[in-house]
């Protein structure tokens, strides 16, 4: 385990104060095998903000997000050019264990994916992985409260996580991700499988959570980015040799991207001319 990286979240906080960038993502080229999935996407993730990634299907939003906590390492044939820094430390440095990266940069997935265990054990899972010595029950309660799920499950913590509805399951997954207090939470289309009411709740939740956590949000829903994101990155897709390659078109304040987009492509996308 790399001590520099582990200590990074504390030591480098001051170093970074002027820029406030938690994750500096500089992806020049991302390959799956021979296929170029994403090119030229440089997106700094600001501390305490929600950074939204929007764009048409296949534009590589999820790929970019998964580069940030090295989830792509699990995919065979993945390689990339460029670099990703977390608090000025190279996330892909050869001494950095991807397991450690994922402990500091948590993730919520597109499909709710609670484990086949009790609600309590689901939330406690990360705490136990980290060999947390404090009061697990208290942390579980706090995480569930922050995820706005406590009221609904406090009387059935022993029930299976799979017994909850889709929206509840996704909030359970959010609780599980934030229980260990990671510095950044990556959310990969967290509402795509949910109904409008659950979506609303989770959006409210994101806005509450950004007080304490930095969030990177991939969404297929432009309106969602408009509602919750502080900064928005618009990615598009072009037909390239051997497939479709995504790239960053424009990055800016959410209001600027939606009200006054600089690029022609962004304007077309915002107007709904393609999706």
């Amino acid at each position, binding site marked *: 385990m790399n001590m520099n990286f582990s200590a990074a979240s504390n030591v480098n906080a001051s170093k970074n104060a002027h820029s406030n960038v938690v994750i500096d993502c500089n992806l020049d080229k991302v390959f799956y095998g021979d296929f170029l999935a994403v090119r030229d996407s440089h997106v700094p993730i600001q501390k305490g903000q929600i950074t939204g990634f929007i764009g048409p299907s296949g534009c590589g939003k999820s790929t970019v997000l998964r580069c940030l906590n090295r989830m792509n390492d699990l995919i065979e044939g993945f390689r990339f050019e460029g670099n990703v820094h977390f608090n000025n430390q190279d996330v892909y440095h050869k001494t950095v264990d991807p397991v450690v990266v994922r402990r500091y940069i*948590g993730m919520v997935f597109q499909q709710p994916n609670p484990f*086949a265990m009790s609600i309590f054990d689901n939330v406690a899972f990360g705490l136990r*992985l980290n060999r947390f010595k404090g009061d697990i029950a208290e942390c579980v309660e706090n995480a569930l409260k922050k995820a706005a799920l406590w009221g609904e499950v406090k009387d059935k913590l022993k029930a299976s996580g*799979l017994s909850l509805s889709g929206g509840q399951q996704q909030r359970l997954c959010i609780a599980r991700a934030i229980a260990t207090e990671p510095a950044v939470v990556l959310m990969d289309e967290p509402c795509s499988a949910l109904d409008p009411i659950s979506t609303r709740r989770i959006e409210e939740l994101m806005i509450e959570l950004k007080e304490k956590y930095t969030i990177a949000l991939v969404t297929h829903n432009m309106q969602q980015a408009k509602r919750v994101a502080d900064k928005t990155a618009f990615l598009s897709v072009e037909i390239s040799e051997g497939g479709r390659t995504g790239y960053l078109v424009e990055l800016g304040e959410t209001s600027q991207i939606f009200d006054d987009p600089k690029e022609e492509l962004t304007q077309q996308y915002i107007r709904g001319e393609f999706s």
Partner: protein
Amino acid sequence: MNAFEQTVAGEQISGPPSQTDYLLDRSFRGLATVCAWLILIVVGLILWKIGAKAVPAISEYQLGFLTGTTWDVNKQVYGILPEIWGTLYSSILALIIGGFFGITMAIFLTQDFLPPRIALVFRTIIELLAAIPSVVYGLWGIYVVIPFVRPIADWLNAEFGWIPFFSTTLSGPGMLPAALVLSIMILPTIAAVSQDALRMVPYRIKEAAYGLGANRWEVILKVMLSTASTGIFGSLVLGFGRALGETMALAMLIGNSNQLSLSLFSPGNTLAALLALNFPEAGQHEIPVLMYAALVLLLITFVVNMAGTAIMTMTSKQLKAGR
């Protein structure tokens, strides 16, 4: 053609299914129903026949048959407690050994430890184990396993003879070689069904565990195994059921002696071996007794399978519905 079908008949490509389609559909459904019932009827007939033939013995020996420990044809004293014990003991031992290795192999072959092509080779080899005839296992046990375990057994008996499991010497055939061979025989079942269970775990569950910062072993031990636990338990039930009924290899390896011992090295007997060895020379009076023993074996496998299924449905319900 009814009124509904007539409304646009002739103008469209679409039309109702033909009479032949209906006939095929109906006859297939009929065939499936008959097959389903046939299974029940065959099982019922087997029970009925064995039960009817066992009646004289049941009325004569009653439940004492289950607790008696001698089998003497000349004196007409019969008891199958040593056989019941031997059946359960050898199967449980085989389940422990075969279960451990079977589940380990299933993990090894499904969790990306090997390139897919090599994993396939291993999987095929394990499945081939199921195709080896029982009698070949028996011979292998006699000529390979027994000579191999004998020095180990002698040493254990000499050094740790005070432990009940090692309290006798291995005179050749015995519980340990029988259980070892039996465990290899049930290994393909356990490994195959456990592999299916592990492969059924959705990728997103694995991803969730990695996303929380779990390393490979934490993912496997804490998430994959618990998610697949129902299926893995099912594989153990199937393996145990197979071990209970296994006959030939055990008849060759277990020693066929009416002993009731905890010792792994002592010879013993099982119900299936008892039946196989005694039927050919059974007299008028012995046949109902053997039928009675067969009924007991049937009952044991039935209870084990039912209990296994019940536990599986209970846990999978708990996993899905909670509470």
